[in-house]
């Protein structure tokens, strides 16, 4: 149960950080704002986190 909650909490915190901590008017690249880029960056980080967590799951 605790393992499951930690697995869920880290990506949720990443999304929250991107949504709340990055200013909406923090510049833009290719017409896409910094907050949205921060959100997009959560995807590879979540993938790396889940890849690390899946090592213990039996076939």
């Amino acid at each position, binding site marked *: *149960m605790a393992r*499951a909650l930690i*697995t*869920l909490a*880290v*990506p*949720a915190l990443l*999304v*929250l950080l991107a*949504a*709340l901590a990055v200013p909406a008017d923090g510049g833009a690249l*290719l*017409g*896409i*704002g910094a*907050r*949205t*880029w921060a*959100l*997009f960056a*959560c*995807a*590879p980080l*979540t*993938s790396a986190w*889940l*890849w690390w*967590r*899946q090592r213990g*799951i*039996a*076939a």
Partner: protein
Amino acid sequence: MTAAFLAVLALSLAIAVWARRGAGQGPRAYFVAGGQLGAILFFFLSVGETYSIATMLGFPGGVYAGGEGFVLWFFGYILLAAPVLFVLGPWIWRAGQLHGAVTIPDFFAAHFGSRALERVIALGAIALLLPIGTMQFAGIRLVLGALAPGVPMPLLLAGAGLVTLGYVLLAGLRAAAFVAVLKDALMLGAIVLVSALALAHWPSAPAPQVVAAPQVPVGLPFALSTIFVQALGFAMIPQNWAFLFAARGPQAIARAQAAAPLYMVMFPLLMAVAVFARRLGLPVAKPDFVFLATAQHVLPGWAVGVVMAAVVLAGLVILSSVCLAIAPLLTRNVLPGLDGAAQQRWAKAVMALFIALSAAGALAQVPLLATLNTVFYFGIVQTLPGFLAALWAPRASAAGLLAGLAAAALAILAMKLAGLGLGGINPGLIGLIANGAVLALWTRARPRRDGRSVIELLG
């Protein structure tokens, strides 16, 4: 353009024929591929399913029309669905194995020993899935209308329906899985190619007549509560359970979900395409056509045909998997007592009817569609408290689950009828809280004496 489009569809049918090789017999082989899909095929079926025609057309269309406001909840819920399925998927697979389930109601009926619960969940799921077919046809209609403007639309949609029926009749879920590989390869290729060409021809300054995208404000309470409800709801979608049951084991599920977020590279590329079209002042008849309009601008005709085929395949694969989810809900759970052969015979009739109704809905341009789509997730997530109770709470009963579902429905209906906004919070979350609270109270007041949780049963 048309020849390239037809060649891709013909290739997809050839793949469906090829998928028949090695397929077993019986409902389990047909509806959940006999539980034999390895990590790669499961990835394409399950993760690829995330990227429907709505993603390819609707996401850039939304950015083009409304700016970045909706990106947080749209991207956020798809991203967080991966860890949710990473955690719950292996347990859903084990619970299905334990009770030999093919559908969600199969599991609930076997675990709680209740036909009433089975029927309520099956009928609710069917009602919620019906608009999904119409939405796919609505997207397909947009593409086919541009591809062959001189051909009557009913004929074009009938053709699309026949191809879908071809997939499911040829090899059931195996066909959907194999065609999903082609669809994803073409879709990813199309997005990378169109966005790369857009970046290569990026206008240094916006066209003079272009104004910035109107920013449609999306409140944080709505965005965050919607992410929460929809990410959790993703784990309870009937066809996602079929995909999970089709996987070879928990490790295949976990690996596919760990890789799933990498697939989201498509979103910044799709967003760049929408921004490119806006800066260029590209004429777009409807916002949802912005990706295809950009493809027409940067690609030669035959390549546009391939891109259109990729978009249509995205709709057809989803349609086929929804067909394969609805049919057993009706033939196994609502009308029980049919043997294996009769189930498959009835299932084929149900799937043909579903396709015909969905195409008719798209032709009629059902005005309620957008509302029904928002209802989908906050309805579908309501079986989650019951599933968690089955996992961990041996004293939870079928009556408690039914009471929880009724409380959720009442809470959502009351909010809608009274026009209560509750600060923009997604009504599905209020329903989920009511559902969980009533289930907990009922379990405490009237506990099941002879029950055992899934975790206890698995030892």
